[in-house]
C-alpha cells in the first residue's frame, strides 16, 4: 500500500478541529488547513455514506476555512460591480448570487458568493486557499470607492447543513421562518440561542440546504455543532467531510478553484457565461473577455462518464479515440449517488458533442469514456 498523509506542523485549524478529531475523523491538509476528509465507519460515516446522506436526508459540514470579506459604505455596490463579473445591482437586500473575481485577462482570481446584507453592505464568501490573495485583491482594487473593506474570515465558524431534510433540521434550532427563505436568499435569526445569526440558503452540494455563520470561539462552535447533530438524529443526520464535499459538488458540476477555474482559464472556457454580465459597462476582465469571445474558445469544459472499467482522476490525460492527447481531467472521481465514474475535462470544442467517444489515460492505458450532459446530477424538483 502506498503512503499515508501527515499534516504539516504550521497548519491552520478551525474552531471545530478538536470536535472532528474527537469524533474520529480522518484528517487531511487542505490548502494549509487541518480538515476532516471523512468520519468513521463506526458512526455510520465514510465518504460514500456521507454523500448519500446529503442526497437523501441531511449532512453537516464545517466550512469555516472559507473566507469572508465585507464591503460596506456609500459606494459598496460600485466597488462590488467593479471586481465581480455578475451583476450585483440585481440583488435585493437579503439576496445572494454566484459570481467570480477576475484578473484583467478575464481569468479567475476566485469564485465567490456575493450576499447583499444591507443597503450598502455586501459579504463575499471566498475559498479557503485564496483567503489572503482575495482580500488583498479586493482591497487593492476598490481603493477608489468610498467603501470599507474588512477581512472577517476569522470571525465566523461556518456550518453547512445540506440535503432535503436540512430545512427540517435547522428549523428546530431557529425562530427564523425558513420556509420564507428562497434558495440563494438569506435571513437573520436566533440559532441555538445565539441572536442575529446570518442564515443563507446556499451550499456547494447541488442540494437544498443552509449555511450558518456563528461566532468563531471554540465553545460556541462546539455547542452549535452538537445541537445540530442532536436535532438531526431523527433524520439520520451525519457529519460530512471534504471527501463527500468534493463528490457532491462534482456530481453537480460545481467548479473548484485550481481545477475547473484558475488564473489561466477564462470565463468562456469554464462555461460560466450565465454568471458573467457583459451588459455591465465595466468590470475587471471585461475587455479581455470581449476579445476572447470574438476569438472563440480553444478549449471547453465538459463532462465525461467512463464507459470501460476505470476511474478518471484529476490531471489524467484525455485522448481521442485514436489515442492522441487532446486535453486533461480537471476533477475526476467515482460518483457515489450516480454509481458511475465521472470527470470534468478541458478538451477542444470539436469534441464537445454529447456522446463523443474519448479515452482517459489511466496508468499508461487508454480507457473508454464518453461525453455526457452536465450537470451529472440535478436535485429533483420539490412537489408543490
Amino acid at each position, binding site marked *: *500500500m502506498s503512503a499515508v498523509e501527515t499534516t504539516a506542523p504550521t497548519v491552520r485549524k478551525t474552531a471545530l478541529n478538536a470536535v472532528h478529531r474527537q469524533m474520529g475523523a480522518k484528517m487531511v491538509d487542505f490548502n494549509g488547513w487541518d480538515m476532516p476528509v471523512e468520519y468513521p465507519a463506526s458512526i455510520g460515516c465514510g465518504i460514500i455514506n456521507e454523500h448519500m446522506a446529503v442526497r437523501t436526508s441531511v449532512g453537516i459540514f464545517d466550512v469555516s476555512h472559507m473566507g469572508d470579506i465585507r464591503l460596506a459604505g456609500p459606494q459598496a455596490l460600485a466597488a462590488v460591480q467593479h471586481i465581480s463579473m455578475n451583476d450585483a445591482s440585481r440583488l435585493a437586500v437579503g439576496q445572494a448570487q454566484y459570481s467570480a473575481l477576475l484578473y484583467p485577462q478575464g481569468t479567475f482570481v476566485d469564485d465567490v458568493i456575493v450576499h447583499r446584507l444591507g443597503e450598502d453592505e455586501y459579504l463575499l464568501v471566498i475559498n479557503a486557499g485564496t483567503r489572503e490573495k482575495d482580500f488583498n485583491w479586493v482591497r487593492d482594487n476598490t481603493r477608489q470607492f468610498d467603501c470599507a473593506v474588512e477581512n472577517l474570515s476569522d470571525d465566523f465558524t461556518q456550518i453547512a447543513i445540506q440535503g432535503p431534510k436540512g430545512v427540517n433540521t435547522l428549523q428546530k434550532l431557529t425562530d427564523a421562518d425558513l420556509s420564507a427563505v428562497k434558495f440563494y436568499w438569506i435571513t437573520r435569526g436566533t440559532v441555538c440561542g445565539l441572536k442575529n445569526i446570518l442564515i443563507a440558503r446556499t451550499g456547494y452540494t447541488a442540494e437544498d440546504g443552509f449555511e450558518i455563520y456563528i461566532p468563531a470561539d471554540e465553545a460556541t462552535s462546539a455547542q452549535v455543532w452538537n445541537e445540530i447533530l442532536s436535532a438531526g438524529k431523527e433524520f439520520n443526520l451525519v457529519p460530512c467531510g471534504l471527501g463527500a464535499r468534493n463528490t457532491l459538488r462534482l456530481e453537480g458540476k460545481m467548479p473548484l478553484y485550481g481545477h475547473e477555474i484558475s488564473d489561466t482559464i477564462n470565463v468562456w472556457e469554464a462555461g460560466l457565461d450565465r454568471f458573467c454580465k457583459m451588459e455591465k459597462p465595466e468590470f475587471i476582465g471585461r475587455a479581455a473577455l470581449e476579445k476572447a469571445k470574438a476569438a472563440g474558445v480553444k478549449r471547453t469544459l465538459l463532462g465525461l462518464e467512463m464507459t470501460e472499467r476505470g476511474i478518471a482522476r484529476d490531471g489524467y490525460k484525455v485522448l481521442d479515440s485514436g489515442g492522441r492527447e487532446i486535453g486533461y481531467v480537471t476533477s475526476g472521481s467515482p460518483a457515489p449517488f450516480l454509481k458511475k465514474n465521472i470527470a470534468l475535462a478541458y478538451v477542444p470544442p470539436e469534441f464537445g458533442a454529447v456522446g463523443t467517444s474519448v479515452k482517459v489515460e489511466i496508468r499508461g492505458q487508454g480507457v473508454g469514456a464518453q461525453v455526457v450532459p452536465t450537470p451529472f446530477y440535478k436535485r429533483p424538483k420539490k412537489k408543490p
Partner: protein
Amino acid sequence: MSYPTDRKYTKQHEWIQANGSTATIGITDHAQEALGDIVFVELPKVGAELVAGKPLGTVESVKAVSDIYAPASGTVTEVNGELASSPEAVNKDAHSSWMVKLTLKNPGEVDTLLSAADYEKYVAEEGGH
C-alpha cells in the same frame, strides 16, 4: 485488532498466507481502514510474474489510488474476480478477501516477512489505529 497468525505481513500492509509452494495475497485490515470505502481493485492477469516488493496492482478508494506490492515473487495462478464487482468486500473483511493466488518462486522468502505480532507492533508505532 488482533491479526491472524496463520499468515505473514509486510510494512506495505499486505498479508500473505503460504502453503508449501503456493500462497494467497490480500491487504490488511489496517490498510482497508486507512483507505476508506474501496471502489476499485485492479489485479494482475493469471500467468503474470510478480516480483517481491514491486507493485502487482492497485486498490482505489473514492479519493486515492494506492499500489499493492507483492510480498513475494512468483507466478499468478488465480485472481479473485469477485472484487471487480464487489470491491467493498475488502472493507467488510480484508483478511478473508483474497486477491491473488500464486506459485512462489522462493518459498523461503515468506518466512522473512513480519509475524502478526510484529505487524501489530509496526502499525501501532506508525501511529495507526
